[in-house]
């Protein structure tokens, strides 16, 4: 209700403004609804909040953030193509969610139903231990894990989630056997880590950034070290081919015309190139990537193949 009110109020302002300047402005000439398929407060929300002011600055229109949580994002994604494809409704998308959900359940949409116009950042997987943990490095951790296979517990948010995938990938690459303990979110997962209930936690660089000195990050799943953690090695440096995390993009309804998709992709790309935006995102622990509309389909195919394999292992393990 309030969201609608702000939308129409902003619309009125935009209308007045539009009349004063150009009568037939190009896209966008009214505020854009940006649907986040999760509750406010998470990484999807925070990154959208970071984008918000830059969008207004660059596109001259407001970005209005709405939340449509439910079924791990599936409620929103299954309804994406029912919106009008005029470019004024865009929706956040998350990987591996939009690939794993259709593979493992029947969420009411297929991965290919979702038209991504840009994949703009990811939160790299990070293996985190508490500051007082006996494991100083990833080698320490692996040595301890290999001593008693299965006895090492690692917390994460949810089953068949990005954290679960990271754990599976880690086991594949290192040969270690861990016990993954799923929690209903990042907050309880990190609480379990700090309280000593589990030995380590799968989180993201954003989580490590939020916890500061209370935790030690053993390694991050990036190609190069994160600017915020110059002392934390990448898995790759240590000899394990693990790069990735939870990717976030923006999608439009399938009925959206080609030029509008291109224009949205250009706008989001421009935000991604803004030095102030880059700095804000990196300080919060995010890692930016640029997959514009033209490359999004190929990129998704590649990810589908990658997660498809993991999904089989996750399914077989249970």
């Amino acid at each position: 209700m309030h969201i609608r009110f702000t939308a129409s109020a902003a619309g009125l302002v935009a209308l007045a403004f539009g009349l004063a300047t150009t009568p037939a402005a190009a896209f966008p000439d009214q505020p854009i609804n940006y649907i986040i398929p999760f509750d406010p407060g998470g990484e999807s929300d925070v990154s959208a909040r970071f984008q918000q002011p830059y969008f207004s600055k660059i596109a001259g229109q407001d970005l209005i953030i709405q939340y449509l949580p439910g079924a791990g994002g599936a409620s929103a994604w299954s309804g994406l193509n029912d919106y009008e494809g005029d470019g004024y409704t865009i929706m956040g998308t998350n990987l591996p969610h939009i690939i794993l959900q259709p593979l493992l359940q029947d969420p009411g949409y297929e991965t290919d139903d979702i038209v991504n116009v840009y994949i703009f950042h990811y939160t790299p997987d990070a293996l985190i231990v508490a500051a007082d943990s006996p494991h100083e490095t990833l080698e320490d951790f692996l040595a301890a894990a290999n001593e008693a296979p299965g006895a090492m517990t690692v917390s994460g948010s949810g089953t068949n989630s990005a954290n679960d995938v990271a754990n599976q990938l880690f086991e594949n690459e290192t040969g270690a056997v861990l016990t993954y303990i799923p929690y209903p979110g990042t907050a309880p997962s990190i609480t379990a880590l700090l309280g000593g209930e589990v030995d380590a936690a799968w989180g993201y660089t954003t989580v490590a950034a939020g916890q500061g000195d209370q935790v030690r990050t053993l390694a991050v799943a990036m190609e190069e070290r994160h600017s915020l953690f110059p002392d934390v090695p990448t898995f790759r440096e240590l000899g394990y081919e693990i790069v990735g995390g939870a990717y976030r993009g923006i999608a439009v309804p399938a009925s959206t015309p080609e030029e509008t998709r291109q224009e949205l992709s250009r706008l989001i790309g421009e935000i991604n190139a803004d030095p102030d935006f880059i700095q804000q995102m990196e300080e919060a622990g995010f890692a930016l990537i640029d997959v514009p509309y033209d490359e999004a389909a190929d990129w998704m195919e590649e990810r589908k193949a990658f997660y498809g394999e993991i999904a089989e292992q996750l399914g077989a393990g249970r």
Partner: protein
Amino acid sequence: MEIFGFLGEALSAQNLMFALLGVIGGTVIGALPGLSATMAIAVMVPFTFALDPASGLIMLGAIYTGAIYGGAFAAILVNTPGTPSAIATTFDGYPMARRGDGDLAVTIATIASVTGGLVGGILLLTLSPVLAQVALRFGSTEYFWLAVLGLTLIAVLSEGNLVKGLMGACLGLLLSMVGVAVVGGDVRFTFGQRELLGGVGIIPALIGLYCIPVLIDMVARPGQHLEAPAAGRGFRLAEAMGIAIRDGWNLLRSSVIGTVVGILPGAGGSIASLVAYSEARRTARNQEEYGKGASGGLLSTESANNATVGGGFIPTLVLGIPGTPPDAVILGALLVQGIRTGPALFETQGQIVYTFIFGLLIATALMLPVGLLIGRYAFRFIVATPKALLVPLIAFMTVLGSFAVHNHPNDVVVMVAMGILGWLLNRAGYGPSPIVLGLVLGQIAEQGFVRAWMIGGARGDFLGQLIINRPISWAIVALILVTVCLPLVKSIRNRRAEGIRR
């Protein structure tokens, strides 16, 4: 004292205005079932970016505490918890309203909420770093036992008809399992309906189970919904104050319970008020009145749920771990403003943090006048509006409220289905509260147990993980035993005494 400089800052005209606006807005939103504090705060977040951080935070905190308090109005006046935190408030609040003491109940709830909020806020101000450790000491095991403690309330709530109470609770537990399981990812009880993948929402179920039977009852029963009060009775503030002071120990204990439960991420106001209620009833001298309109029950639930506000900010500010969903939104807002939470926060950002905490305390105190005025208006409105108008209005609100949870019509269907189910069960003598307790606590109990099982299994010591090595669990289990066994012992003793007399 440097800290009191921040008090002055919190008392600036601008900050006072934001606190007042926040409390008014929050109370109204909380009073409307379905419109949640989380959503209200999320909507207001962009506006706070234009303010300085402390003022923005004060407004968000004020909305939050106001909304938790406002939930009591709907609970007392129409037997529908405005927020999940107010579930237990219906137990005694609505019976009070039915016997003509709705105005007194609202005033008592206001005093209790302000007291609880102040206790939570003062503990946040003084003992945050110490209390944050509580959040860390609570593992999956403790959540399991805490949920079981909450479930023992069923025995209390369904006195005289334990079997029906237990059957209701089992139904609630089954409902809590619908959807994709967090642990294991299995899809359960969806019967091929993808709308059910996300499970049965607590808020639509609450609205349906509590509110629809009341609506049907209002239509079926002649006469006014609530008795009109005698003219010129005012707020009955002195009377309510007297009750609160006489029951001061209960008020204080419930506030502390609320603060401690609020610190636990994943527990929240509903569990806090249930545990506080259970303790209040167990220790009360007039036990048999609980559930039939005892002021002590109302005092305990309303003080406990508002104490969770201050309690929830403790892990949010100290550990960077949100204690409740609204805390998560506020944490996100802090992050966007470039403020890092964590142990160093009180030193590096002391000015913002202390100004905010004082602002929260002031907002809580403002709830007294604001709440009394809004409460009186709400009470008069419910009493004076003819049923022909009141019923469609509330019916409309139930639809709006369940839709607003996820902006999705699914939840409206769930609400109506639960409402019809609740009405039929009510007729057969099954109350809504055991079902709701099963629904709210089922997930917490199940997940806690399964995780303790997994962790214990990995370490080869399941019993150690579940109870033996967990002193906090011992205490909770002791409370469970006392809650379950004491009424049994008492009834056996009574029966014996009767036998001797015969």
